[in-house]
C-alpha cells in the first residue's frame, strides 16, 4: 500500500482530462477541479513510434540525465586559440555552420564566406580564383559541430582564425567559436571585400592576442553568471546581446588595461568590442555548445543536442542517435528587413546560432526580451507565448536561466523530439537573416519555423532502435 493509493481514495480527486469533452463537462457539473488538456493527435500518425520510444525503459532516465548534464554546465572563457590548434584544421580545411554541405549545394552566403576564408588564408588572390578552387571540389568541409565548435551565420572557420575557448568546468569539455566581426560587410554573412579580409587580419594580429592577454590576467571569466545577468537585463542572447556585450566590456576592460597592450591597439580593441553589441554572441554560442556536448550519446535519450543550419538545410542531432544529422530544406525566416531589402533578398536560414535555443536561451527566453519583439516583427504578448509554449516540448527548466516576468521561472530546456511530434510544436527560433547574394551581409531579422520533418525523422530513428518495455 503506497501513500499515493491511500491519497487517491481519501477525498474527491482533482482530475486532468484528455480526450472526449463530454467527460470534462460531467466533471464540471459535479464541481470537480479539472485541468483539461488541449489534446491533438501527434503529427504524421506517429503514435506507435512514439509509444516505442516512451516504452523504452532507458528513455525516461536518459532524458533526465541529459537535462541534468545540460543544466549543470559551468561555461568559462579560458583563452584564445587558433583554429589550427583548437579544432585541428590544416590549410585547405574549413569548418562551416549546420549539417554537412558541399560547395555545389552551398548557398550564396556560404560560398561567399568560404571565398573570404580562402582569400584570408592566402589560398587565392582574387574572389574568382577562390571560387574556382571551391568549384573544383578540393576544399575539405566539415560541420563546426563535428569538431566541438559552433559558428554564427555561415560559421566558416579557417586554420588561422583566432577562436574563443570556452571550458565547461563541470565536465571538463571545451567548445570553440570565432570572434565576432561586427555588423555590415562581414565574412559570416558571406562578404569577401578587401575590408573584410583586412578586418580578419587585424583580428588575428591584434584583437585575438589582446583578448587572450586580458583573460590570462583574470584566469578565466564565468560566462554562466554573465548570461544569467544578461537575461535579467532583457537579452535573449541570440538576436539581442546588448546587455551581455556591455557586461562583457565591463569585465574585460580592466584586465585589458593591466595586460600591457600597446596603447593605440588597446584603444582600437576597446572601441571594436564596445561598438559591437553582438560581440557576446560568439561567447554565448560556445557556452551553449559546451553545456550541450556532455548530453550527447546517451542511449535512449530523445533530447536534441544540436540544431543548426547551413543556408541550404536545417539539421538536428539527437542524444540517442549519436552524430547522425536529421535534415530538411531550410526555410526563409519570417521577419522585418533592413532598408530596401525584402523577402526576395533573403537567404534560407543559416548558422549554428540555434545552439542558443537548443540550450534553453534565444527564442526560448523571448519572454525575458520583450524589447526585441518589434525587431522580429511581433508584439510583447508574442514573446510571452513563445517562451511559454516551449515548456510543452522540453524536458525541464533551467535552474539558472530565469525569466523575471514568469515569476523567475527557469527557462524551458532540453528539447524532446517526442514532445515536438506530440504537440505539433517546433522550437521557437530567433535569427538574423542573411542576403542570398554572396557579400550582401545582413538584410533583416526574424523568426524561423524549423521544419517538422527533422523531428519526425528523429522520432522514427529512435523508435527503430528502441528497446522493448
Amino acid at each position, binding site marked *: 500500500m503506497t501513500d499515493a493509493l491511500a491519497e*487517491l*481514495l481519501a477525498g474527491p480527486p482533482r482530475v486532468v482530462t484528455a480526450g472526449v*469533452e463530454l467527460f470534462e463537462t460531467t466533471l464540471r457539473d*459535479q464541481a470537480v477541479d479539472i485541468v483539461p488538456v488541449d489534446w491533438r*493527435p501527434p503529427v504524421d500518425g506517429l503514435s506507435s513510434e512514439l509509444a516505442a520510444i516512451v516504452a523504452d525503459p532507458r528513455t525516461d532516465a536518459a532524458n533526465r540525465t541529459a537535462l541534468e548534464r545540460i543544466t549543470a554546465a559551468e561555461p568559462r572563457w579560458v583563452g584564445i586559440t587558433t583554429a589550427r590548434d583548437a579544432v585541428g584544421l590544416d590549410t585547405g580545411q574549413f569548418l562551416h555552420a549546420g549539417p554537412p554541405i558541399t560547395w555545389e549545394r552551398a548557398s550564396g552566403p556560404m560560398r561567399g564566406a568560404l571565398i573570404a576564408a580562402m582569400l584570408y588564408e592566402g589560398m587565392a588572390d582574387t574572389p574568382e580564383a577562390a571560387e574556382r578552387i571551391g568549384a573544383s571540389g578540393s576544399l575539405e568541409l566539415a560541420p563546426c559541430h563535428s569538431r566541438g565548435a559552433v559558428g554564427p551565420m555561415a560559421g566558416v572557420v579557417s586554420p588561422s582564425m583566432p577562436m574563443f575557448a570556452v571550458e565547461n568546468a563541470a565536465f571538463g569539455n571545451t567548445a570553440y567559436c570565432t570572434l565576432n566581426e561586427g555588423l555590415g560587410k562581414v565574412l559570416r554573412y558571406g562578404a569577401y571585400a578587401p575590408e573584410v579580409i583586412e578586418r580578419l587580419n587585424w583580428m588575428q594580429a591584434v584583437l585575438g592576442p589582446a583578448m587572450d592577454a586580458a583573460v590570462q590576467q583574470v584566469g578565466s571569466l564565468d560566462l554562466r553568471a554573465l548570461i544569467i545577468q544578461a537575461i535579467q537585463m532583457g537579452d535573449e542572447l541570440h538576436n539581442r546581446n546588448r546587455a551581455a556585450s556591455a557586461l562583457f566590456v565591463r569585465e574585460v576592460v580592466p584586465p585589458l588595461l593591466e595586460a600591457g597592450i600597446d596603447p593605440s591597439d588597446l584603444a582600437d580593441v576597446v572601441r571594436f568590442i564596445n561598438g559591437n553589441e553582438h560581440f557576446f554572441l560568439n561567447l554565448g554560442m560556445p557556452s551553449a555548445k559546451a553545456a550541450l556536448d556532455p548530453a550527447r550519446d546517451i542511449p535512449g535519450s530523445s533530447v536534441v543536442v544540436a540544431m543548426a543550419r547551413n543556408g541550404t538545410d536545417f539539421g538536428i542531432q539527437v542524444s540517442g542517435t549519436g552524430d547522425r544529422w536529421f535534415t530538411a530544406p531550410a526555410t526563409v525566416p519570417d521577419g522585418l528587413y533592413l532598408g530596401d531589402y525584402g523577402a526576395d533578398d533573403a537567404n534560407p536560414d543559416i548558422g549554428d546560432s540555434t545552439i542558443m535555443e537548443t540550450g534553453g536561451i534565444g527564442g526560448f527566453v523571448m519572454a525575458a526580451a520583450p524589447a526585441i519583439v518589434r525587431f522580429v516583427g511581433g508584439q510583447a504578448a508574442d514573446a510571452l507565448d513563445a517562451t511559454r*509554449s516551449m515548456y510543452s516540448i522540453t524536458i525541464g527548466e533551467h535552474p539558472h536561466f530565469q525569466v523575471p516576468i514568469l515569476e523567475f521561472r527557469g527557462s524551458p530546456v532540453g528539447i524532446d523530439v517526442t514532445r515536438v511530434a506530440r504537440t505539433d510544436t517546433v522550437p521557437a527560433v530567433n535569427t538574423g537573416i542573411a542576403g542570398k547574394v554572396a557579400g550582401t551581409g545582413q538584410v533583416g531579422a526574424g523568426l524561423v519555423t524549423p521544419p517538422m520533418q527533422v523531428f519526425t525523422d528523429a522520432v522514427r530513428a529512435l523508435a527503430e532502435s528502441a528497446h522493448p518495455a
Partner: protein
Amino acid sequence: MVDHLDVRRGAYADSVSLMQVSRRVGDVDGVTNALIAMATELNLDLLAGMGFDQVDAGPGDMVVAVRAGDDDAVTAALAELEAALAASSGGAASAGFGDAPPPRTVRDAAAIGGDLALISTPGEHAYLEAVDALRAGLHVMLFSDNVPLDQEIALKAEAADRGLLAMGPDAGTAIISGVGLGFANVVAPGPVGIVAASGTGAQHLTCLLDDAGVGISHVLGVGGRDLKAEVGGAGTRQALVALDADPTTELIVLLSKPPAEAVAAAIREFTGELSTPVVFGLLGPTEDDLSGVATTVIERIGGPVPTWPTWGEPPVPDGAGPGRLVGLFSGGTLCSEALLVAEAALGPVASNISADPERRLTDELTADGHVLLDLGEDEHTRGRPHPMIDQRLRLERIAAEAADPDTRVLLLDVVLGHGAHADPAAELAPAIRAARERARAEERMLHVIVSLCGTGSDPQGRDRQAAALVDAGAYVTVSNADAARAAVTAMEVPA
C-alpha cells in the same frame, strides 16, 4: 443536390463532440447528409461511402461534408456548424495577454495540478498520455478502448512499480469519493467498494444497491481485459489493495466476467489475504445475475432486501402464438445478462456479443428469430455516437423492428447518470409509442420492456424518465434481470 466539402487544416475536436456537431448540422432543414469529422482513414472511408469526392487530408485535419437540397440549405448548415463548433469548444479558456497556453499533454496539465488523469483519446494515442500521467505521479483512468494489449500490460506494470492505480483501458465507469468519472450514476456514500471489469455492470450494481439504501465508497473500473491471462489481474490487484486500505470500505465486490482459471485462482488467493471481505460477482451462465449479486451484498451488509422498483403493468402472455424477442441495448453487460436469461428460457438467441460463434452476428446484425444486440459495441458505433449518448441508432432500429409482424417483445435498456443522454425518454418514448400504435393498427401485440439503470439522484430524474416511458406503453424495471425475465414471460405461449 449540392455537395459542400472543405478541409480545415489543423482544426481538432474529439470524435464524440464532432458526432454531435454532425447531428446538429444534419438536422438543418434541407440537409440530407452531414459528416464533420477528423480525417482519419475510417472517416475518409465513411465519406467515400456517402458518395463524397475524395479529399486530401490527414488525421490532424477536420473535414466538413454537407449534402443538401440547395445552396441556401448549405449556407444554413455551415452557419449551424460554426455555432455547434463554438459551443463544443466552450471548455477551453481563451488565452489573453499573460495567460499560459493550455496544456497540450497530460504531463503539462499534471504540472498545473491533479491526482488522476481521465484519458479518453482515441486508443492508439492513449498510451502516451497515460505514461505521462504515471510519470507525473497521477493515477490513470483510461476510458479509451482499442489500446494494444502490450501497452495495457506495460502501463499496469509501470503503475504497480510507482504505487499508482491504472484503471482501464476500456474503463467506462468509476466513482471516487462520490466523483463520477466517465459514465456513472449518482449514488449515496457508504460501505461498499466495487472493483469492476465491466462499466455498465458496475453502473447497474451501484443503482441496485443505492435503491436498497446501501451506499458506495468507491467504484474502481479496471477494464474488460484485466482478468484475462495476459494481464493477470494487475489492475484488479492494485484496486483491491487500495480499497482494502480505505477506512470507509467495509465490503468489496469484484465484478467481472468469469476470468481465466489460473487468474481466478490467483485472485482468490490474493483476496484471502485482505482484511476486507470480498464478494465475487462473476457474470456467467452458472452464476448469480447482477440483481442476485446485489441481494448477496445487501444481506452481507445487513440491510433488508428490497423488491426492485417497477413502473407500469408487466406484460402478460397473450397466447398470440410464437414471435420474436428483440433486445436493443446500449450497455454491454446489461445485454449479456439479458442474453443469459433469454437463452435459458427460449433456447438460442442471436447476438453480436454471443460467445458462440455460430450465433454471433456480424455486419448486418439482423436475424429471423430472437435477437439481442449490444448497439454500444465498438464495431457497431464506428463513426456513430454511442447509444448511451445519442438514441438515433436505436430509434431507427426500433422503427424497423416494429415493422416486422413477428416482433412480439421489444426489450430496451436506458442508462442514466453522468455522461449519459440528458433526457433519453424524450426521444425513446415517441418511438415506443409509434411502434406500439403500428402494431395495434395491424392488430398484433407488441410489448415494450425497459430496464432502467439509474438512481433517484441522477440528473435525468429516474421517476420522470420512467413515467414518460410508461406513458408511451412500456413496462419499466430497475432490475435488468427482471426486465429480461418479464420479456421471457411475455413470450410464453400457452400450452
